[in-house]
């Protein structure tokens, strides 16, 4: 059984960290130059401020995936409470077609409960999750580009 859970980021902090290396290995860019090194103090501070939305996927209690996002008024649109995705990940053995739907439906439900009006999500081009978001009825609205500039002189 795979279930989605709204959980407290700070309480689950250590458990979440256990999945980050696999997540980074599969999805990160420029891995040769950019190691995994989250600013955990910033995450914890934002959680203490009530800004973090965490939804986990669990199977027999074991962490199978997560969504982490930030809730707050948008910088350019102060009247619009916005959920902005930070990261999401589902362990490969649980990518059976419904895990992503369960995760994001729970995210939507919790976001609605918190009064969020608009949410932004995304995925890497090299691990495209567009079909999941389209199935959930999301509209593609923006494309990001990246350029590696190298080490500073």
């Amino acid at each position, binding site marked *: *059984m*795979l*279930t989605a*859970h*709204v*959980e407290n980021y700070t309480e*689950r902090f250590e*458990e979440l960290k256990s999945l980050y290396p696999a997540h980074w290995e599969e999805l990160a860019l420029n891995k040769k130059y950019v190691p995994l090194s989250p600013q955990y103090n910033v995450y914890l501070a934002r959680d203490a401020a009530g800004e973090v939305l965490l939804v*986990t996927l*669990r*199977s*027999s*209690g*074991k*962490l199978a995936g997560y969504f982490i996002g930030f809730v707050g008024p948008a910088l350019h649109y102060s009247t619009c409470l916005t959920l902005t995705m930070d990261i999401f990940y589902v362990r490969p053995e649980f990518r059976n077609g419904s895990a992503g739907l369960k995760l994001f439906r729970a995210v939507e*439900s919790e976001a609605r*409960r918190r009064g969020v009006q608009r949410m932004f999500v995304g995925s890497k081009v090299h691990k495209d999750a567009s079909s999941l978001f389209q199935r959930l009825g999301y509209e593609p609205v923006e494309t990001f580009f990246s350029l590696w500039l190298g080490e500073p002189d």
Partner: protein
Amino acid sequence: MRHFQKIAEGIDVVPILNALAVHSDLWNENTLRTTHELSPHQQTDDIWCLFNAIPNDPSEVIDDCEVIPYRAWKEIPTLRTLVLDLMRRVEGIRLGRVLISRVPPGAQIPEHVDQGAPADYYVRYHLALKSEPGVINRSGGEDVCYGMGELWWFDNRVPHSVINNSADDRITLVMDVRPC
């Protein structure tokens, strides 16, 4: 949250868990609540501490607010002490049903709304004796995973359910209390 309220945390529940381990024969001595045809609790186990006297027609229980002590109430003194301490904490003036509920790993209590006179008269509290990540306590569309030793008020007058997708039992002390 409108359907859950944490009342206390850090309550030492280990003495109760110890008593339950020693008195494992108390489980399912009384099965009316978990076996009747329409029960949402069919996948769970019970220990009755304070519960209604069972009349010849068991269906009459649904509107009976009076309770009597069962064996667990007499044989686990630490349970009485704990419950009476919690009564003080929530400023209760009358105790209704007190029971211990166990939801095994993988089991569920499907969505339902508590019915009958006790549900109108008392308010419902849960003390989490054992609860691990993976448990979903849901009421009114809100989800909470209790932590061990936490006391929660929860709204049993709206649709509520439990899914235990953890690797261990979810055990709660269920208390009905008439508030001041």
